[in-house]
């Protein structure tokens, strides 16, 4: 990946990440988040993690974010006023976060972390290599993950179902939102 491209993408990622934090309208935040994810996916591909990069787009941008979108619609979130409550805390917190970033970059820039490069083997990042790892070394984890996803589907349904209460409201839309999206996301990952 040529450096200028990296610089461009990095700047884009940071800007859109900031967008997530500073924008008032949840939908705009979501869009910034999506663009961050896309940029990061491109960075993945630039780092020879092709499959994972595409998976990032498919799963994150394609499924999870849509889930967010639906929830925002479902709750009908409007543009919110500026930050209120615990202003001091929040400023301090953001300062602390900035300090954290500085510290981390300092630490990561430290010479001892300069790992000595190892040439990537042929077919690095290809589906074959990923699947090879997944179904040999990480097989158990993989299967457990599938169980986890199943549990997530059930949990989402159980949580989002509206109990038929005195008001007699049906239980249709939230379940549809929760369950379908969850199933969507999970099957996406497995598929």
């Amino acid at each position, binding site marked *: 990946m040529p450096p200028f491209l990296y610089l461009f993408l990095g700047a884009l990622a940071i800007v859109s990440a900031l967008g997530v934090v500073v924008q008032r*309208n949840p*939908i705009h935040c979501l*869009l910034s988040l*999506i663009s961050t994810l896309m940029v990061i996916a491109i960075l993945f591909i630039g780092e020879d993690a*092709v*499959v994972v990069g*595409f*998976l990032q*787009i*498919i799963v994150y*941008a*394609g*499924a999870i974010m*849509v889930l967010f*979108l*639906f929830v925002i*619609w479902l709750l009908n979130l409007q543009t919110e006023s500026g930050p209120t409550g615990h202003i001091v805390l929040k400023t301090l917190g953001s300062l602390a976060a900035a300090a954290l970033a500085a510290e981390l970059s300092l630490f990561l820039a430290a010479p001892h972390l300069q790992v000595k490069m190892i040439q990537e083997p042929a077919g690095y990042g*290809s*589906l074959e290599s990923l699947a090879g790892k997944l179904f040999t070394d990480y097989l158990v984890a993989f299967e457990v993950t599938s169980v986890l996803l199943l549990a997530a589907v059930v949990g989402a349904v159980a949580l989002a179902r509206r109990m038929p209460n005195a008001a007699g409201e049906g239980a249709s839309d939230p379940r*549809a939102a929760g369950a*379908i*999206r969850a*199933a*969507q996301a999970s*099957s*996406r990952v497995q*598929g």
Partner: protein
Amino acid sequence: MTAELISGAIMAILMVLIGLNLSLFLLYFERKGSALIQDRIGSNRASITGFGKRFGMPNLGIINTVIADPVKLFTKEDFVPDGADKFLHTLAPFIALFPVMITFVIIPFGDTISIGGHKIDLTATNLNAGALYLLATLGLGVYGVALAGWASNNRWALLGGIRATAQMISYELAMGLAIVSVIMTFGTLNLQEIVRGQGGVWFGFLPRWGIFTQPLAFVIFLVAGVAESKRVPFDLPESESELILGYFTEYSGGKQVVFMLTDLAEQALIAMLLTTFFLGGWQIPWLMHDGFHLPGGAILAVPALAVSILGVIAFLVKAVAVCVFLGMVRWTLPRFRYDQLMRLGWKGLVPLGLFNVLVTAFVIVATGKVQ
């Protein structure tokens, strides 16, 4: 390197153009084909000179559809409703169009040809993870309509957006499963390789097309594709009778053109993908590199270049044929109800797709084709 870049760029443009032209053909077919099916004359007023009829000039409606419609739409006022999110409202159509357009580039439309020593693969980007790329772009197609519905501050639009999003996402899953089973059969993510894998014949006469190796996947992909492109019988998001025009109710002028183009392009894309995955792409039955190997065993030789060109032509023909088929479907079937749509998607296609994947896996393992 640069040569590849150049050729790739050229072919990318070529591919996009093919897509657009297919869309135009679809537009035309919307008008005249529907008229044909419904026993109407269809649009026949405008013509080059404007007096086509008088001079008995043949008027196939090409003029109206390909020129008059866009012109009419472009000249309309570009209207943004009050209280709408202007930025997103403007952005949405292009977000919708973008993924479709960039998906064209991975579709192989021909075999490798050698021009002046250069061997050129007739696909814009011979991507090794092509199928994944396809899934990714399909996944992004949602946002355009969703944002369009949300940004235009209109209940019907929002409803249409929600419907469109839910529908597309649900059917993407089925489509993904179909693609997965195809990938498993051909053992590669590279679309060009998949098409190559569909060369040759079985029992001397039956071409190894995906439609024969993966009939179930073909059906799933077909249905899901129609649903993806939100056409009848899956055009719930823009069902005039319920939501005025669905997610682009509030769109007019150029943006509406973009949306219509998106729909048509999606349809064209689906047609091309069907061709690539199941109808052998640029493969012609019994046509090998050196000519036709007819079932009888007779061989009539064809020069290599001609083979390649024939392949491209075959690809286009198949794509057009599928487009026509889709159009006919559109003008034949009635519209689903939304719950029926969801049930078909989640209770019909997805389990079928999973089952198909399972069977495919079993077969692959049984035949020991697993590496």
